[in-house]
């Protein structure tokens, strides 16, 4: 038991003796970060590494970079990263540091107080032309008959190529109808005709397709005024001038404006209304005319005896009146057309 105690205390003294030797150098104590890698999507570059774990302590990291120019002409120069000298998490956004399309070397080290680890360097230098370009997001809206598009804001490095066209369902099948007929002829003629028809089809599709370049995302852009009833389709891809690469085209999205039925119904109602007016107006005019005529010149019906007497007196004093037609008496137009014996008829 005594021997065991001596052995334990010897081990303890030996450990304590070693500690100053390890700490004096300082650099080797903290392990260096491992597994450095760069993920880059749409010109946003992020350097990540395996974290250094020291229980109960917060580790800070410093990132430095060196462009191809520095590595060729002044290899001792390493530039501290804009945002990560120092940083806490095991990742660093190096987008603002990678500013040219050349290979960049990157290195990271951990620090804990006055202790620092060794530098850990990225295995293969990173060139930003290896970034993954994804098809951009787009939002299509209809402002009445106007086709408006809003593109995802990807930053100042991105330009957008917007392709849009009016879809005509009949035309694209025209050439597929031609092909079976041509195939019945000689093989060579078929091949040439097929090539020409395909080229013409592509040409007509291209001539119907419009391309617009949009410099900035995030703001609505007017494409064209849509025709009612026809589908209008849009697809877009990005272009990064700094690396001379395009992304893939986004999914084609088509919109349609419902315009046919409304004017048709409107036209129908307008026609019916017009016909009604055409009939009703003359009818009401005629009716009004009749009412007015009879209101200002009412017909007075004399009793038979008075009319007879009046006639007799008139013939006595003015014999020549008897030769005139009886309508001149002015009392022979009854106010309605009921069938009864007209007093002026003989």
């Amino acid at each position, binding site marked *: 038991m005594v021997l065991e105690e001596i052995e334990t205390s010897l081990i303890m003294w030996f450990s304590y003796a070693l500690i100053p030797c390890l700490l004096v150098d300082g650099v080797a104590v903290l392990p260096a970060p491992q597994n450095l890698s760069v993920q880059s999507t749409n010109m946003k570059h992020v350097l990540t590494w395996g974290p250094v774990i020291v229980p109960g302590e917060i580790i800070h990291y410093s990132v430095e970079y060196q462009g191809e120019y*520095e590595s060729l002409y002044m290899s001792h120069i390493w530039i501290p990263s804009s945002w990560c000298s120092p940083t806490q998490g095991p990742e660093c956004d190096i987008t603002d540091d990678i500013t040219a399309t*050349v290979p960049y070397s990157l290195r990271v080290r951990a620090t804990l107080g006055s202790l620092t680890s060794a530098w850990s360097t990225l295995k293969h230098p990173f060139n930003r032309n290896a970034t993954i370009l994804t098809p951009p997001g787009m939002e299509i809206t209809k402002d009445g008959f106007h086709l408006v598009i809003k593109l995802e804001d990807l930053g100042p490095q991105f330009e957008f190529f917007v392709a849009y066209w009016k879809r005509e369902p009949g035309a694209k099948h025209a050439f597929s109808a031609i092909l079976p007929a041509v195939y019945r002829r000689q093989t060579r003629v078929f091949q040439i005709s097929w090539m020409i028809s395909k080229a013409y089809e592509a040409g007509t599709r291209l001539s119907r397709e419009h391309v617009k370049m949009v410099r900035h995302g995030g703001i609505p852009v007017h494409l064209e005024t849509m025709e009612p009833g026809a589908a209008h389709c849009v697809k877009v891809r990005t272009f990064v001038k700094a690396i001379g690469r395009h992304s893939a085209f986004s999914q084609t999205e088509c919109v349609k404006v419902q315009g046919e039925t409304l004017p048709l119904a409107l036209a129908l109602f307008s026609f019916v209304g017009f016909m009604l007016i055409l009939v009703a107006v003359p009818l009401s005019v005629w009716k009004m005319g009749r009412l007015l005529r009879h209101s200002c010149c009412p017909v007075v019906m004399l009793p038979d005896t008075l009319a007879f007497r009046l006639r007799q007196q008139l013939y006595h004093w003015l014999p020549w009146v008897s030769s005139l037609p009886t309508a001149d008496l002015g009392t022979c137009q009854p106010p309605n057309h009921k069938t009864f014996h007209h007093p002026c008829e003989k």
Partner: protein
Amino acid sequence: MQAQCVSLCLLGAMVFLCSAHARGLRRCVISMDMRRIEESFRGIKNAIQAKDTFQNVTILSTSETLHSIKPLDVCCVTKNLLAFYVDRVFKDHQELSPQILRKISSIANSFLYMQKTLQQCQEQRLCHCSQEATNATRIIHDNYDQLEVRSAAIKSLGELDVFLAWIDKNHQGTSAASRQET
């Protein structure tokens, strides 16, 4: 049979003529966005030019050299001046401030990329150097050698805006016109 041969021949001839015409029209231009580099320089321009003590002297001698360059000599002069900055100016300048160092690094690495682009043109023999182009380059090198190295380097750095504007003017004409812009 004969008609098919004739039509094929005509098609082939058309394709050949079109490609020859396109090759003849090709010029060697750097199609990159100079605005980024100009922005980088604008950030440090005042600090750099404040350190220039020889105000009456110019190294690029713009009126004698850059303004008198013909379009056919643009590729050669650009290539030579890029080499001038990359091989001499940036190396001779000792920068201590991290902010300025970052910007100079950005410009230097961009110049390296432009040199690689022009290298391709040179391999395709589109970057021929005439006597005027060679003379203009020699004048600039001579001006640089007349000053003490550190002063010459800081002065040349201060004149970067002139060089960048000249590149922008001579290399953006075709690439801007070929696109339909909003």
